[in-house]
């Protein structure tokens, strides 16, 4: 081994080669062109070069470079983020796993590292791999916060053409793209949600392992979930050999697949390649204040809601014989909870597709929707706004039709409104946020959930949930737009809930069982998985479909609440020793006291 390794790093291999870029021909051409300049300009040119001079070292250039921009966009770099960037660059040679808990700003840390390396002149070609749903968010964060303008790559033409590329893992791993990507020497590769690389047998892992890269960042809040082998695989992807080979790792560090042994030694090895910042007393978000405002629907609204719910129940139970797709029924039920206008859109589409019998029933529903010119919820919104002078208010809804109704109703009242939704271009989104933040003439932003993904509005502290998403994680995401690092004031959340609808039960569940408004949920992957993978929305729909009256519905929701409570309890207590290992990684300086 010694002999071979000696060959791989001989003295000559590490003697720096000198490359001269003094082009005599160019110099002679300049003389021939009489390109003489004054002595002052000559001296100034040299001075400019000295000012732009790049030096490795402890000091982070990114902090001064982006100071003004961060003030404009309201980004405050936290001590733990600065310490992380310094450690990755100065101690870990740009190869690290950033494993901060959810919400502590892994993306900000990665953005700072990318920018710092670019400013230092050592990185030019960068590839960022993310899940498809996060590509736009990454591009937006990099442009808004770091003055970096990546291209969201779609195909083989993009890889060589651009230096800063954001791409979904799914796109990158396609055969034609993978081959091209693995031939390009990247200066820096960043992989977000890197737990997707835990299995070496997958295409994801194969793609990333095969990329040529000098610096390498893996971002994940959950370096492993169930099996210590996942942790081994991730570390070995970053730095093969850090934990030895798998056989040695298993023998030395694994009691079983979830329990560790020789934990202190393992922790020390992990700390060399992984940084995990955790919440602690140092980072305390301001409290959330929640007001649930029940409202009575008008008799016509109540009748419409009931008619649509009956239709949905009946169709859902018909299963295979149903004229309408179950997913459409789920959407329709959520829409009718939001506004008659949202439901009307789906009813209209169903009208045009359905047979005669069903069509008649649907047309009847559509007529009822069309008869509703106003929704009672808006009276409440206007009442809230009238009490919030000069305060910026964010109104969230799930549906664009509801968004348009809210906008037009407020305009009629003389309240200028900005709208924000998923169909807008990135530049229009930027402009709208900028205007909402800076222009006092626009106190209200009405936002759809798709549009609001990834935006940060810490300058605003009041939000109205015009309707409720049926998934608690999505509700958490909404609140997270305001209630996040950088928010300095108490956050006020107003929930509008129409009595007698399924929303009433759902909200009670979220308040009492999930305790959603008291704390940040989703710190644990187990909870995230529970609410996403098991399709919580479908469980709510089941409760509605399989009950005949309010008493039965209430009983169903009680059972669901008990299940959630149990899941939350397990997330807190049923953590294998491996998790404790990760938690202990952050003791000391990484614990945000």
């Amino acid at each position, binding site marked *: 081994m010694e002999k071979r390794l000696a060959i791989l790093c001989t003295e000559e291999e590490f003697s720096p*080669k000198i490359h001269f870029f003094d082009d005599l021909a160019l110099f002679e051409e300049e003389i021939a062109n009489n390109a003489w300049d004054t002595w002052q300009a*000559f001296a100034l040119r040299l001075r400019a070069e000295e000012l732009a001079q790049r030096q490795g070292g402890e000091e982070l250039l990114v902090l001064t470079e982006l100071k003004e921009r961060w003030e404009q966009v309201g980004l405050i770099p936290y001590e733990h983020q600065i310490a992380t960037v310094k450690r990755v660059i100065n101690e870990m040679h740009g190869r690290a796993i950033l494993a901060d808990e959810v919400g502590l700003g892994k993306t900000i840390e990665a953005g700072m590292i990318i920018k710092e390396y670019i400013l230092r002149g050592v990185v030019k070609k960068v590839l960022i791999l993310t899940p498809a749903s996060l590509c736009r968010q990454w591009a937006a964060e990099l442009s808004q916060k770091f003055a970096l303008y990546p291209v969201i790559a779609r195909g083989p033409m993009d890889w060589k053409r651009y230096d800063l590329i954001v791409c979904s893992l799914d796109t990158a791993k396609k055969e034609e793209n993978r081959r091209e990507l693995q031939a390009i020497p990247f200066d820096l590769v960043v992989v977000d949600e890197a737990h997707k690389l835990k299995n070496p047998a997958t295409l994801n892992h194969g793609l990333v392992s095969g990329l040529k890269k000098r610096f390498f960042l893996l971002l994940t809040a959950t370096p492993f979930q169930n099996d210590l082998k996942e942790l081994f695989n991730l570390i070995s992807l970053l730095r093969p*050999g850090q934990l030895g080979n798998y056989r040695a790792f298993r023998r030395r560090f694994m009691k079983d697949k979830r329990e560790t042994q020789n934990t202190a030694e393992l922790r020390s090895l992990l700390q060399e390649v992984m940084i995990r910042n955790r919440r602690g007393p140092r980072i305390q978000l301001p409290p959330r204040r929640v007001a649930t405002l029940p409202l009575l629907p008008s008799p016509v609204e109540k009748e419409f809601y009931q008619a649509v719910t009956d239709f949905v129940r009946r169709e859902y139970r018909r299963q295979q014989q149903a004229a309408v797709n179950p997913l459409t029924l789920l959407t329709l039920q959520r829409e009718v909870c939001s506004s008659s206008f949202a439901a009307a859109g789906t009813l209209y589409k169903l009208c045009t597709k359905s047979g005669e019998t069903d069509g008649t029933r649907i047309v009847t529903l559509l007529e009822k929707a069309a008869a509703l010119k106003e929704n009672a919820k808006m009276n409440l919104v206007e009442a809230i706004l009238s009490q919030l002078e000069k305060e910026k208010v964010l109104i969230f809804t799930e549906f664009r039709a509801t968004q348009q109704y809210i906008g037009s109703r407020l305009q009629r009242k003389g309240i200028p409104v900005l709208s924000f939704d998923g169909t807008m271009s990135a530049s229009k989104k930027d402009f709208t946020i900028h205007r909402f933040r800076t222009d006092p003439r626009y106190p209200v932003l009405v936002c759809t959930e798709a549009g609001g993904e990834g935006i940060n509005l810490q300058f605003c502290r009041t939000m109205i949930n015009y309707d409720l998403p049926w998934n608690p994680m999505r509700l958490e995401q909404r609140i997270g737009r305001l209630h996040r690092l950088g928010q300095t004031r108490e956050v006020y959340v107003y929930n509008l809930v129409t009595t007698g609808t399924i929303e009433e039960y759902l909200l009670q569940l979220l308040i009492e069982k999930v305790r959603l408004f008291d704390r940040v949920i989703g710190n644990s992957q187990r909870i995230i998985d529970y609410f996403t993978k098991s399709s919580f929305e479908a469980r709510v729909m089941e409760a509605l479909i399989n009950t005949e009256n309010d008493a039965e519905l209430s009983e169903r929701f009680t059972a669901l609440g008990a299940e959630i409570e149990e899941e939350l309890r397990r997330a807190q207590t049923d953590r294998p020793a491996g998790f404790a290992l990760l938690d202990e990684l952050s003791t000391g300086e990484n614990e945000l006291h």
Partner: protein
Amino acid sequence: MSTGRDESLTGENATDIRGFVLEALEVSGAVFREVSEDLILAEVTVEIPPLFFDPPRLEKQSLNLVFDPETASRYPGAELATKNSPRLQWFIAGLKKRGRLTLQTLVSDPAAAGEKIRAQCPELPAGQPHSEIFRPWLLVNYVVARYADQLWEEPVSLGIDMSSGEIFEGFFALLEKAGMKPGVPAGQIARQVIPLEKAFALLRGFLAKKIAAADRSWYKNARRCYEEELFCLYRYYHEKTGISRLNPEFTRKAKELYEQFRPRIEVRPVNFGLIYLPEFLYTTEKGRLRFCPLLGRIRTGTREELAGGEATTEIPEAYAEKNPEEKSAGESSVESCPGKSPVKNRPGEISSQEPAGAIPDEEVISLHNGKE
């Protein structure tokens, strides 16, 4: 620094940057007003890229500039020009189009030169007749960049006497303190003996030697890191199997690591100057003296040797292997300017005082990448 600048010039405090910006505005012909020590108002002409307008469109833009973060809040809307700030980068980028080449003559002052030479040669009588000749020098300011997994840049300023091949380090700093006037001098000019191509080669040789003699800790550290990483990689792929057959993954990742830590040096010229330096020729009983006031040097030689620099036609083939302080061919003696001690380098900087190393300046075959 090797340009010979003092700390106050290389430090990037608010006053330095303010001075730089003021000069940049002046050089660009912009209208500006120094409202106070903190604030400068300027109107600059900005070019809209030719992508949109052909020919490029010019627009006026107003700038309110402050330089001290502490006082910036007093001037709402003003832009902060500090080290690495976008506005300072904008000025720096703008200057890339200027000051690439200059043609200057050092202002001659025979009286001051007479006093200087008599300080070194007291036997030379006052009023000794002399003649004046201008010798052409090529000034090149370089940036030497050292790369491993980090990058360090350092300015180096060299002047080469185009008649003798002598190289002087820190040339710009010397000239900066002296008076310059644009263009070719009116008096007698020494013949340029060295073609540009040769001058470039000599400068390269000088730099290569200087780099070889410099602090090597940066690439030794890089090598240490590389070896650590390589050993780690070995543990993963070959601890059990040995290396009788190298795993291709091991080889590929080893190359990746080599690319991360591989040290290399890039030398990039920033700008060039053709500079004429006055020299005074004195005839004494012992022979002829040639005195360069800027360098404070007296050279002695026979009449032929010193006649207008014509005698310095023989350029030593391996000049680059000589220290610039050493004699040049065709000169009978070279004396150092009194009080001009060798430049002291700061730790980590390239220094010509340290023993020469063995960095090959020819191409090197890399086991990882084939021919570099």
